[in-house]
């Protein structure tokens, strides 16, 4: 059969493409890491050093202490943890509403919710800024935290709703016969069954807040309140010529996300596959 004959060449080709592609995609990481471990003199050496020698671990401690990265990291973790928990809880509550109750206009409301995904943030940015200014909340964390308590964006709600819809309604009904109210059904029945979807939303949300640049840039003025993203930008401003330290600081910013991604990966890609395209 021709099928059997062509299969080995085809899979060899696939392997080759996969290897070359992932090499190209990984090189920027490796290059950053390599630069972060070079001594200042070796960064611009000709010919370029591929493998850093001697390895300058102290780039990390230098970068860490040049600016108060300890407080940047603590600030960001605080923000990301608070916002992520708020988004998972309130987002799933809204999703529960959309998944289980149909009321007059519920379809329309869901459509409006989805269309906000297409709304550029710039349109609401300025009025929202003015509201926070009138509340005298500039240079506080409130403008960054409070929005997370309102469901945390259409994408999360959509993802969770799709997942909830796939959970059989009979479970709700059984719980109701046992005397559970709607809050209990949400918290005791649907939430425990939605591990992968919740994990996906939580990881997305955590990464989103860890990464957020424009929010802190607009609302925070005092450097001691900065997050890692804004702090890294400040680092580039002040120490831009010390490239090895800039790269070390970037690694500090990247590493937690990558570690989190690897830990949650099992749920992550599967969660999206299961839920993201459900009704499409």
């Amino acid at each position, binding site marked *: 059969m021709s099928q059997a004959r062509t299969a080995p060449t085809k899979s060899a080709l696939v392997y080759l493409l*996969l290897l070359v592609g*992932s090499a190209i995609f990984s090189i920027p990481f490796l290059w950053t890491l390599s630069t972060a471990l070079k001594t200042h003199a070796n960064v611009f050496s000709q010919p370029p050093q591929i493998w850093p020698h001697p390895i300058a671990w102290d780039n990390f401690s230098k970068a860490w202490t040049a600016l108060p990265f300890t407080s940047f990291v603590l600030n960001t973790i605080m923000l990301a943890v608070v916002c992520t928990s708020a988004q998972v809880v309130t987002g799933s509550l809204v999703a529960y509403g959309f998944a289980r109750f149909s009321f007059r206009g519920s379809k329309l409301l869901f459509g409006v919710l989805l269309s906000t995904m297409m709304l550029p943030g710039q349109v609401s940015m300025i009025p929202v800024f003015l509201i926070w200014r009138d509340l005298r909340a500039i240079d506080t964390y409130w403008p960054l935290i409070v929005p997370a308590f309102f469901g945390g964006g259409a994408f999360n709600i959509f993802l969770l709703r799709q997942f909830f819809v796939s959970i059989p309604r009979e479970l709700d009904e059984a719980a109701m016969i046992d005397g559970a109210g709607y809050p209990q059904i949400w918290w005791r029945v649907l939430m425990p069954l939605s591990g992968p979807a919740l994990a996906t939303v939580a990881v997305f949300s955590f990464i989103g807040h860890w990464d957020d*640049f424009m929010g802190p840039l*607009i609302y925070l003025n005092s450097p001691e309140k900065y997050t890692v993203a804004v702090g*890294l930008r400040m680092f580039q401003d002040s120490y831009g010529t010390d490239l090895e330290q800039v790269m070390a600081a970037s690694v500090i*910013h990247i590493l937690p*996300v990558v570690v989190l991604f690897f830990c949650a990966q099992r749920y992550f890609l599967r969660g999206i596959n299961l839920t993201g*395209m459900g009704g499409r």
Partner: protein
Amino acid sequence: MIASLYLSLTKYDLHAMEFVGFENYRRLMVDDPLFWKSLSNTLVYAIFSVPLGLIGSLAVAVLLNQRVRGQRVFRTLFYLPSIVPVVASALLWQWIFNADNGLLNMALSVIGVPPISWLQNEHWTMPAFVLMSLWGIGGGRMIIFLAGLQGIPETCYEAARIDGASTWRSFLKITLPLLSPVMFFNLILGVIGAFQVFTSAYVMTGGGPNNASLFYALYLFRNAFEYFKLGKASAMAWVLFTILVVLTAVQFASSRKWVYYEAQPA
């Protein structure tokens, strides 16, 4: 939204507000060359990065959908760049594009290309940004394509194989039509995303050289939070919103011609 619409009709510098009607819009369109510059920069960026990104992420998805050993590792490696925080990836690419010792120029010198000042020469800045955007083709859009590919029943391909169709032909005649709704979804989000480029330009070039990387969102941000022309910035936000609504409507209208929807079981 309505507050922003009203603001766009005023002159407001955080202290005094004065109603000026459509003056902000007139000034943008007539007196402000940077408005047009930022708009055309963003359009050029979208015209290149959106189609290349779509084709790229579809190609990666097809590749990652093949059944080979270690596919999970490959999926992770391709996905990883898209979770790198934007500021960090901007710094990383700034270093890769470095004219003297950047990785890209080093790689190009191997095949005899003289060094290019990617971020200092205004003609090369936009290609640099497009190139950088392609690093993320293994991200969210690819996952959506992958999910779409996995939703195509194997029986379709078997039927085609029995009819003697080549792999390429069944890709054209089965995969692409069945994937067109997903393609459409990615296209719309891709266009909107292209209009939102801000952080990378803010960090890497600050809009330069000679405003070659002054993206629309960056110019809007500057008007609002650096020049404190909040009325003008709100007008820009509304122009942006109108452009996106029109573009999305055009895409929806054209979709009747090329998007194939399976008969949904009611």
